[in-house]
């Protein structure tokens, strides 16, 4: 078992990890920037070390400063949380090289899953369905025409050397494709000095469903799936478990494919395999594997009764998986919403400020993971997540009712938050029916923007 853990993160996830560690009797060391001296994770940890100025690059992303803090305080382990250095393979390697335990997978596993083409290849090799398309680079139109047999239309063409959405074209039919492919090749050559292209089927209407896995390097199990289709600008805002869209047969196929991938790469720790689910075609496709604990992990904890962060700490401490697959069962339905410091009435403009008063919802089946306290000033330098409100009930319908109730109890004065969005979503017939996909919320927001001011019901 680990003895002393440094948490290389801030905000609600640092608080979450400190709690899990303390429940296991592990001593905790928080790190903080100059902007976070008053933060809750600093108050709750057994010790706290200042690691630099507010800019994340100089503090929470500063590997040397974090390692020094860990060594100086006598830690034997480092938990990276999510974001910041959580999926930085060099950080995992550096922690290990310093003689400490990294609570997460090896640098090599992070590197493999961080490389989109390599991860796609690994998934394919493990028998996990991937989005139809090229297996690596396509260098000519003759090869490209063969790939069209698998992809159909619309098809996406993107520069192999591109990134961040650059050099992407979508062709709706063969005529467009014949025109676009040579053009994309020439452009990629001019822009990146590399005319290699990738092709991928475009799935226009899909759900985002992901599978939680736990693995110890030898064995792997899944903890069922999460449904995260309600997204704004590709950011999840409302997550559920289990997914209402899957038959039990498809659930088995999906979850066991995630376990196969974890086993194939010798994965260790908690991970999430993300899929697109094309409901009309009844097909799911691998997108990527996230090699960290995720923001929305609590919905899985609520339906399984597990503490995923504690399991991560146990695995990192050298224990084999404590659970067999048959030990993990689903009870009821859970929903999480992300309360961000954003004003939904003003196109979600960021809204840092000071919490004047705070009323936290409670009662059966309600959990509030947060770094807020009355008088806390939210710094403007980091992401806008303030709190996660999670509810659990026997059925999905009861969970939505409980969510609406809990939201009505929640009061955060002094800041604008995304609470009005969730109150409106909980009352929406499509949400209640579970009838949505990853692009549904954007359209809904265009129509319903006026309903998102806090004064309206």
């Amino acid at each position, binding site marked *: 078992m680990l003895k002393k853990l440094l948490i290389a993160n801030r905000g609600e996830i640092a608080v979450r990890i400190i709690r899990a560690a303390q429940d296991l009797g592990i001593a905790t060391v928080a790190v903080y920037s100059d902007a976070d001296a008053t933060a809750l994770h600093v108050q709750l940890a057994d010790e706290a070390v200042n690691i630099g100025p*507010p800019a994340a690059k100089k503090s929470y992303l500063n590997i040397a400063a974090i390692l020094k803090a860990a060594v100086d305080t006598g830690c034997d382990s480092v938990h990276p949380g999510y974001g910041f250095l959580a999926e930085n393979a060099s950080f995992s390697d550096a922690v290990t090289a310093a003689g400490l335990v990294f609570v997460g997978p090896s640098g090599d596993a992070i590197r493999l899953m961080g490389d989109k083409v390599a991860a796609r290849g690994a998934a394919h090799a493990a028998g996990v369905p991937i989005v139809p398309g090229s297996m690596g680079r396509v260098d000519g139109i003759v090869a490209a025409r063969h790939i069209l047999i698998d992809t159909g239309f619309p098809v996406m063409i993107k520069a192999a050397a591109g990134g961040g959405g650059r050099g992407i074209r979508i062709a709706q039919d063969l005529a467009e494709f014949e025109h676009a492919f040579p053009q994309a090749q020439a452009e990629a050559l001019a822009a990146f000095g590399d005319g290699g292209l990738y092709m991928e089927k475009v799935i226009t209407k899909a759900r985002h469903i992901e599978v939680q896995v736990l693995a110890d390097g030898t064995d792997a199990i899944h903890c069922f799936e999460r449904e995260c289709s309600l997204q704004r600008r590709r950011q999840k805002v409302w997550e559920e478990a289990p997914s209402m869209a899957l038959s039990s047969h498809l659930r088995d196929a999906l979850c066991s494919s995630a376990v196969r991938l974890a086993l194939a790469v010798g994965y260790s720790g908690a991970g999430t395999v993300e899929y697109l689910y094309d409901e009309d075609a009844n097909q799911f496709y691998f997108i990527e594997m996230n090699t960290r604990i995720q923001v929305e992990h609590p919905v899985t904890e609520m339906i399984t009764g597990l503490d995923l962060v504690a399991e991560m700490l146990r695995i990192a401490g050298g224990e084999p998986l404590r659970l067999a697959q048959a030990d993990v069962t689903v009870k009821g339905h859970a929903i999480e919403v992300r309360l961000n410091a954003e004003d939904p009435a003003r196109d979600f403009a960021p809204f*840092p400020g000071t919490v004047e008063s705070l009323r936290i919802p409670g009662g059966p089946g309600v959990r509030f993971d947060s770094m807020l306290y009355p008088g806390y000033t939210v710094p*403007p*330098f*980091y992401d806008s997540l303030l709190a996660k409100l999670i509810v659990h009930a026997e059925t999905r319908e009861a969970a939505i009712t409980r969510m609406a109730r809990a939201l009505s109890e929640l009061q955060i004065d002094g800041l604008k938050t995304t609470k009005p969005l969730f109150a409106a979503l909980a009352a929406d017939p499509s949400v209640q029916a579970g009838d949505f996909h990853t692009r549904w919320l954007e359209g809904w927001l265009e129509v319903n923007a006026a309903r998102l001011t806090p004064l309206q019901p």
Partner: protein
Amino acid sequence: MPVIQSPLPGTFYRSSSPETPPFKQDGDAVAVGDVIGLIEVMKSFHEVKSEVAGSAITFVTDNEDPVMAGAVLAELS
């Protein structure tokens, strides 16, 4: 002396990316509406436009410095 203040709390940037030159160099002339920098607030970026004109700008806040709302970013003469 006219000054340009930060409209928001956050991180001040003098260029749109690390690879591009600053919007303005010390000594440059500034017209009303010119973008002189960006403020990053919770990972979203907002342009800082000058509400005053001047023949020469002098930055008093460095690139990537944290600022509070109302902090003086630059002076104009």
